[in-house]
């Protein structure tokens, strides 16, 4: 304990979190395969995890400083470090005890540039971890997401419905077309492959499903099914249970941005009375963003 107090000055980051499970949930959402490298970016605003795949799919998990019960940042610049996402999540998972709210402290860097984790909720029992970090590869392409025009092309759909739609599209497989049209306002997912499957979300018909819709002209782009599926395949149960919405935006060149919100509030099983009173800690949300590049051969009616 005292040793940590001494070096705390020299550390880039010392932070504490009271809900490990929330962090596990948020990071699991971007875990679409077994071996994934993640880049962690530290800043005064919080911690960002970035993972990507073959230059076509990138995901970011934003853990803002407000999610932490303590956040002391004293680095120059924005340190970036590379870790194995799977290992990090598995490790974090060991800190999470069902039915307990686990309190952990994360510090960086250790003497050998490790990421140091330690449970801090009990004096006589302590879980600790040291995760080796590496110098991260540069991000292969910059996902400068720019709006496609003066008005954003965006819609918000219930996360559960989005996941269900994308799961259903597995059957035709390979490529999925997403089409937005202003009149009548609707979003269409269409898959072509072994067969055709089309899922229409009509804005005025299903306002509880399609929560928001902005579109001033018709656009459509094709996306690889496997990338699209990665955006919802590991969506945490808490997102579905909380009946949250996911926001999808089509940017310039057809870049698709998918945003989810994951609650990192203290587990409600401990405080069922809080939950029943309808009280939710509003700021304890982790933001998850996926960026999916469209397929090259867009034969669609654009711009």
């Amino acid at each position, binding site marked *: *304990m*005292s*040793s940590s107090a001494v070096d705390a000055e020299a550390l880039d980051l010392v932070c504490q979190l009271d809900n490990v499970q929330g962090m596990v949930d948020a990071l699991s959402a971007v875990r679409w395969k077994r071996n994934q490298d993640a880049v962690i970016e530290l800043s005064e605003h919080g911690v960002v995890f970035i993972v990507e795949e073959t230059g076509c799919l990138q995901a970011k998990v934003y853990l803002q400083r407000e999610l932490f019960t303590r956040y002391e940042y004293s680095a120059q610049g924005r340190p970036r470090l590379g870790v*194995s996402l799977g*290992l990090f999540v*598995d*490790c974090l*998972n*060991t800190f999470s*005890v*069902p039915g307990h709210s686990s309190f952990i402290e994360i510090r960086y860097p250790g003497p050998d540039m490790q990421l140091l984790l330690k449970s801090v909720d009990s*004096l*006589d*029992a*302590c*879980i*600790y*971890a*040291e*995760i*080796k970090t590496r110098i991260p590869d540069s991000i292969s392409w910059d996902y400068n997401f720019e709006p496609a025009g003066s008005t954003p092309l965006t819609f918000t759909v219930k996360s559960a419905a989005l996941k269900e739609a994308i799961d259903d599209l597995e059957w035709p497989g390979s490529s999925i077309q997403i089409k937005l049209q202003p009149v009548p306002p609707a979003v269409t997912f269409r898959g072509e492959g072994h067969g055709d499957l089309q899922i229409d979300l009509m804005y005025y018909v299903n306002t509880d499903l399609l929560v928001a819709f902005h579109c001033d002209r018709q656009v459509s782009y094709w996306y690889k099914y496997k990338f699209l599926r990665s955006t919802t395949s590991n969506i945490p149960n808490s997102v579905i249970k909380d009946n949250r919405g996911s926001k999808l935006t089509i940017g310039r060149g057809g870049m698709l941005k998918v945003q989810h919100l994951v609650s990192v509030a203290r587990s409600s099983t401990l405080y069922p009375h809080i939950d029943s009173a309808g009280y939710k800690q509003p700021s304890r949300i982790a933001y998850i963003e996926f960026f999916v590049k469209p397929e090259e051969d867009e034969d669609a009616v654009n711009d």
Partner: protein
Amino acid sequence: MKFKAFLTENGVNLLEKRFLPALDKMGKICHLFLTREHTFFLHNLLSGDGVQSIAQFQKEALFDDYRISSQNEDRIAFAIDISLLNRAVRSSVSICSELGGDGSTANRLQIKLVKKLPPNSTLPTPFLTFETKGYKSAVIQDVPISKPLSRAQVLELQTALDMAQDLPQTLVQVPDLNQLQNFVDRMKHVGDLLNVSISKYGDLHVQTSTTLITLGAEFRKLLVVGERAVPPPEDQNVSAQIRSERAILRGDAQLVQVNVKHFSKSLQCHLVKPDCAFYGIAPQGACLTVIFQFFIPGTRQTDKSISLHCRLPVLDPS
């Protein structure tokens, strides 16, 4: 070679609800070793590797009207499939409870060793037979077993059993088996080998380490049975790793390396609902031992009629 006994209600409860499900997790096949006074369920005692588990019952804990005879000092041992045994006990129980609505003692569960000709075979095969006599019917279940062990094999088993009785000098009581199991089960995803150190101060430290990660847990101020020592005050404010390193150097702690899967298996024994569990390292670091303690219901006195302990093979004896 004869064996015949009636399983008591208490015996059925012990086996069906507690021991057999737990022992099933230790391994599919075990040796059932019957003597004049005791019944043993033994895992991996004759094979070198794997977790050894030794469950011992006084005959009164499981049976009444217990009759055993053999030319080898009334000792009989054979291998049996635990899951089949459990299925037989479980279905006998359900038959008993269906038939025995009137609470009569007639429908008792008899268990005996038989040799029968299985269908399509000319070779008589040994079975452990469960016979449930109801008011109007009887249900018989045959659980196949191995050929009874030879005199030499029984001797070997008895020797292994005697050797497995040595106690660690220091034992620490695990506070919460469920919690530890939860932790170790998640740890399995991170590494394969587990360093376990146990100190005379009452510290239990488990750690797995790979090239990418070190992950550990330390439990302190546990109840110590056997040799103990007072922790030096200068160790209070150091990390778990340093604390256990210093204790080992001082000779106040021992460290062994075991397979994390073995450790997790040993924790599965909490299914037997023990009242306490203790971990300790055998002299010379020969194995990691976990001892489960059972109280006489409603007391804090050890129930000596039941015992269970496991011995985890140590991977690196140095």
